[in-house]
């Protein structure tokens, strides 16, 4: 759980900086979409047996492009934005991959990963949404 909170902490801080702070009144779906895009991809990539390292790195780009698209941009002129979102997305994807591995090894889900994945997804979504609300309330005060 320590790894999860750290990964989510970094993620929310980055997407707050480059996404949430630029948009007002986001719906839950829109607020958590960048993270969900990463989760969805890494789940599929793992299921297909692709290489963890390379796909986790690719998730860094998925996070960036998700943010770009949600902020109505095709490109960014900020190298820092690209670098930060890439690192955060990569770490998150890597963490999720390990989590899914662990769940499988613990034999919590002998018939397939879907229920565990759903559980993980809902837990992370809730945490991110809560974080969004906290950060937004903090910034409004």
């Amino acid at each position, binding site marked *: 759980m320590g790894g999860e909170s750290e990964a989510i902490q970094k993620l929310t801080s980055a997407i707050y900086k480059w996404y949430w702070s630029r948009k007002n009144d986001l719906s839950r779906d829109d607020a958590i979409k960048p993270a969900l895009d990463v989760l969805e991809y890494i789940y599929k990539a793992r299921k*297909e047996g*692709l290489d963890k390292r390379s796909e986790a790195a*690719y998730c860094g780009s998925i996070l960036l492009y998700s943010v770009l698209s949600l902020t109505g941009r095709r490109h960014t002129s900020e190298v820092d934005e690209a*670098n930060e979102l890439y*690192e955060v997305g990569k770490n998150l994807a890597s963490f999720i991959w390990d989590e899914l591995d662990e769940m499988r090894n613990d034999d919590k889900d002998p018939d397939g990963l879907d229920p565990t994945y759903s559980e993980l997804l809902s837990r992370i979504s809730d945490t991110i949404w809560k974080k969004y609300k906290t950060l937004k309330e903090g910034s409004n005060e």
Partner: protein
Amino acid sequence: MSSKILVIISAILLAFLLGIPVNAHVVSEKEWLNDPHDHGDAKIVFVKAYQFGFAIKAIQDGSKIIVYPEGSEPSVLEVEEGDRIVFRVISGDVTHGFYIDGYTPTAVGDNRIVIEPGKIVEVGPITFNKPGKIKLRCSVTCGPLHPFMVSDIIVKPNIFFYILMASTFTIAGLTLLYTSRAPENRMLGVSLDKDLDLLKVRVIGPILKRFLQWRGAHFTLILPNLLIFMVVLAAGFFGNPTGNKNFSIAVVWILWFAAVEFLILFGSRTWCTICPLPAFGEWIARRRIYSVHNPRKWTSLGKKWPKSLNNMWVSALSFLGISLIVPWLVTRPVVTGLLFALLIAIPLFTHIIFDPQRNFCRSICPANGYIGYHSNASIFAVRSRDKSVCDKHRPKECIRGSPTGYGCPWKIYPGGHNENTYCGQCYECLRSCPLDNMTLKLRMIGQDLAKIAAKAKNKFDEAWMGFIRFTLAVFYELVFFGPYFWIKDWGNMGIIYGANLATIGLLTPSLEGLNNWFKWALIVAGVALVGYPAVFYGFSWLAKKLAGENGISTRQLFLSFSYALVPYGLFLWLAFAFSLILVNWAYPITAFSDPLGWGWNIFGTKFEWNPISPEVLPYLQAPLLLIGLALAINTTYNIARELLNDHAKAFRATLVMGILHTMAGLVFVWIVAG
């Protein structure tokens, strides 16, 4: 008898229309030579047309007649300015045509002078009043090598030849004089530091950017070409066996072969952008036609591409190999069909077996190698706007890929590259870069050449690509548009038939044909692989000695200086492309309406062969040669300056290499005008 009357009527008609009398009557070859006619002060030249050349059998001047024995007939006719010549022409085999650039009428319809077997056709008297070298061509399709059935007529004094020789020396001298003034990073007076960001040009830039960043752009550009390739295959296997009547030959080896040289100069690797050869493999490997796959799973065994193939050797040698059978390849549809089938199958195989990238394009494709090599002399390039941005940017989507674009399939780092050699212009980097840092640049020829050449430590493959391309430009001009029948015949293995899949057996060569072909292959490969490189090495050694430079090996100078052939070779090929397209433009245009050569006229673009002012060809080719020479000398200086870091030494080395480039230019001058 009736055909005799017809010939006489058409001859009289022609004479009436053009003022050049043409008479025809049936006689034996013996009568032809032994019964010379009196044409007053006009000389009579006895010409025998045959597949695929013209032999001057005898020349009668007044009462004096010189008869050339069989086998030693001259291929070149020399006349004095103002000479009046009557040609008495017969055919030794099939029906031929008789067309002299700038002298005989258009080669269309009834105006065409036709030489039927067993008949003598008298053409003339023609007064040769324009000094220079002109071509005598066959204007009636007579077999596979018909478009290249030519002979030379030199009207003396051949002033243009002397002017061109003097111009070659003058241009070389002026360029050397220019380099003696120590121009820093300039090419013929133009700065090499400046370029134009094409995607920032008003109106055009945004449209072009939007199109290229659209994922469907590549597919849209490939699709029409893919259809053309399908027609090439169908025509190659099942179309008319005579090359110039077949789409596969007319479109590929006349239109494409010429157009690709212009594409290289103005669009770098634009051909590779639209080439459909690797498309099937790429689509299967990606499991997508144009979108980005998600997840990134490939249909491929993913074996590692052999490191030993990560160079240009296979491309260079396969281009040479293809050139050794070029008289077959460019005239026999079935040979072209088979080559294309192979070129579609190999990339399919490489994508499925090896890592699914453009390994075939990078290392095997015979066209890609030379296109990539000469692209370094192009005015067009895909580059990053600001390299420091790419350096700071860690994700490197241009290599890894992103949700909007694949990582570079050509296995280069687009953000940092500064040469066109292995950039296939697929524009994936424009789509994948989130920083919008990739663009298209217009620049002066040779912008990056000196740097590329200076760091070429062991790039023997690229050096030999340069030698092969450079020497073959001269050979192609000589073989296809030169007057020497024997050289065409040796390369052609003496076979007079065209062939599609049904008649492929006709291409079985005789032992003598094979023997001659080996001699031809030995000459061509010998000059390209050993002869010219050896001379080049010798001059590099001399350049080192004269420059007084001991810190750099002759080998390094040899490798680096070979990059001067990048622009020089390209301009020689451009000169060759002019010969090809201006003379034979009617064949490809007709082929679009009649791809299989079955007499269709689908789009109404059927034309008879009618060259566009072929007599001005040398005047178009000469400037290209001279520009190529000047670029080669200036490039040599820039390379020497980059390597030696000293103007005086660089200039002395350039002086030596300049002599070699000038000598090579003179050879080309002799072929086109001498």
